[in-house]
């Protein structure tokens, strides 16, 4: 696995972690049919934390973060996001989703809308913002991800890295308090990976709560304040990055790290 060095070094001291709980997962279990994909997950994420989730393929990383904004339903246990419990009550689901932004591996931009429209669609229709306001904020975030000049192009005309940055901006426009990233860079070429990671580092510096599934260990070392290692649907080990990388406890983690680094 290649490890990219970022030009823009994260200043970890800037990133404060509060005591407030952002996400609380208790004893959560999930099955696909009869396949037990997540087992007894217990996880507390504090406001401002930046968590990297790693683990072999199929270990349930994606499923875990997809449960957090209810793209998947869990069957047992509780997930409480910002004080709202995720149940089958749609009101709660809507509330949680407006607090949580998500960035996908394949960007999933809407190809028939311009970049700007991509970014303003949800604010206008979900948050009921006036169009003008929504557009202004969208431009603000597009500047933040450094592509304001592309605002009127269509996604198909952008490179992968640019598209992923748009996807990040699109999520930010909903002003989420928590951002979920599911392998945001794994579909990108190396140079583009860098662009996107840098954007994420900036976000981290602003204190955004982040959960990120990634194989970019460089990013994990530099930005995360906790690394969670999953295997076979369970959290096997979690620790601060230094400890995690230099001194892994479990056998599985060791094996995994030996392969990936």
């Amino acid at each position: 696995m290649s490890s990219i060095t970022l030009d823009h070094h994260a200043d970890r001291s800037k990133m404060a972690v509060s005591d407030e709980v952002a996400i609380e997962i208790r004893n959560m279990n999930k099955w696909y049919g009869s396949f037990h994909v997540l087992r007894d997950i217990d996880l507390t994420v504090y406001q401002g934390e930046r968590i990297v989730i790693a683990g072999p393929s199929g270990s349930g990383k994606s499923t875990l973060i997809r449960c957090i904004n209810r793209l998947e339903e869990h069957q047992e246990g509780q997930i409480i996001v910002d004080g709202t419990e995720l149940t089958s009550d749609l009101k709660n689901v809507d509330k949680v989703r407006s607090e949580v932004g998500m960035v996908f591996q394949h960007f999933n931009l809407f190809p028939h809308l311009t970049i700007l429209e991509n970014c303003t669609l949800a604010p206008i229709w979900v948050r009921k913002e006036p169009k003008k306001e929504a557009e202004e904020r969208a431009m603000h975030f597009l500047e933040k991800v450094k592509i304001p000049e592309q605002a009127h192009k269509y996604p198909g005309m952008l490179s992968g890295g640019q598209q992923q940055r748009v996807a990040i901006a699109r999520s930010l426009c909903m002003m989420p308090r928590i951002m979920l990233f599911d392998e945001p860079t794994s579909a990108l070429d190396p140079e583009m990976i860098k662009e996107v990671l840098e954007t994420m580092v900036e976000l981290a510096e602003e204190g955004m709560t982040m959960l990120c599934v990634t194989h970019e260990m460089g990013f994990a070392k530099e930005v995360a304040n906790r690394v969670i290692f999953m295997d076979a649907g369970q959290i096997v080990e979690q620790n601060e990055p230094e400890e995690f990388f230099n001194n892994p406890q479990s056998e599985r983690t060791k094996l995994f790290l030996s392969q990936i680094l």
Partner: protein
Amino acid sequence: MTSMTDPHQGQFRLSMLFNDTRYRSLTYQAIAAILLALAIWYLANNLVQNLRTAGLNISFDFLRDSAGYDINQRLIEYDSQSTHARAAIVGILNTLLVSFLACITATIFGVIAGVLRLSNNWLVSKLMSVYVEIFRNIPVLIWIIIIFTIMTAVMPAPRAFRGDTPEATMLLDMFAFTNRGVYIPGPYFTAPLFASAFLNWVLVLAVLAGSLFATRRMARWATGVQEQTGVRPTTWYFTLAMWIVPVGLLLMVMGLAWEIPALKGFNFKGGIKIGGALIALWFALSIYTGAFIAENVRAGIQAISKGQTEAAGALGLRPRRTMNLVVLPQALRVIIPPLISHYLNITKNSSLAIAVGYADVTATLGGITLNQTGRAIECVLLLMAFYLTISLLISVGMNFYNKSVKLEER
């Protein structure tokens, strides 16, 4: 599984009907069910009311009554004293007959046109495109009428064959092409082995089936030899002999003779008559659907990338072998599913028989029976049930085929 997810389990609120995923789907379905039931109730109620005011009822008893009308094209025994049900069956068989014939010829037309359209002969391929475009873009009803009208208007009437200097003559003194249909010699036996003509023909078919079996065996033997030695023995003359000799002998023993149609009274008598309506419908459906099939065949063959032919060529396979071993097996997977839906279309389009007076099921059950009995609802329901059955059977068969040829992918 015990659910710990939902602490509010006990407190059911009305808003949960719309906001809770568990109830919402039930709510929506309940609403849909109510709306559906209302709609059905409304229609049914109107129907009942209308029938009551008209003093009618729904009953299929009329099927047992005698039909009272004659049908000129029939595959089973039928006369005007037979029941309406039997008339419907005669119609169904006629539908199946014309559909079956049209499926075969449409496939032939389609395959020829599709392959020729890919020919590297510019003129021929253009000509085939013209055929395809012309037939695809003009309604099939117009084709049926054109062909039928032209046939009745241009072909001679039987009376044209009469007289000392007739305006029309029979082809080879055996075939008569008239505007009522084509008359061809009909085979019969002078020394039949069974009294019933039907059994004799069954015997002939049995012998043919035997030949089929034998040639199959020989093909398998040839393959075996090829696997052993690498060289496939030449068998085509054996095959030919196996097809011709036994059946030829049997026919000779039974004294096969041909009844030549001859003009007697108003019409030609003797031999086999293929009615004009049947021919027109058959031909129109074939040539119309053939244009669609041609497109399929072309698309199917083109879907096989040039790389496949090149690879086969590079391995030293000759073009004909390449076609048989590489292109066709792959193309067929692409061609057959749409082909089957074209067959279904032929069956459905054969209902236009009514425009040319061919007695298919739409013309008997949905036509004369309906007129005579006034049982519109019953007749139309039966008619739809028939077509639905056919199309369900065909789509079941198609799913079966699709499953069996699905390419294994990674």
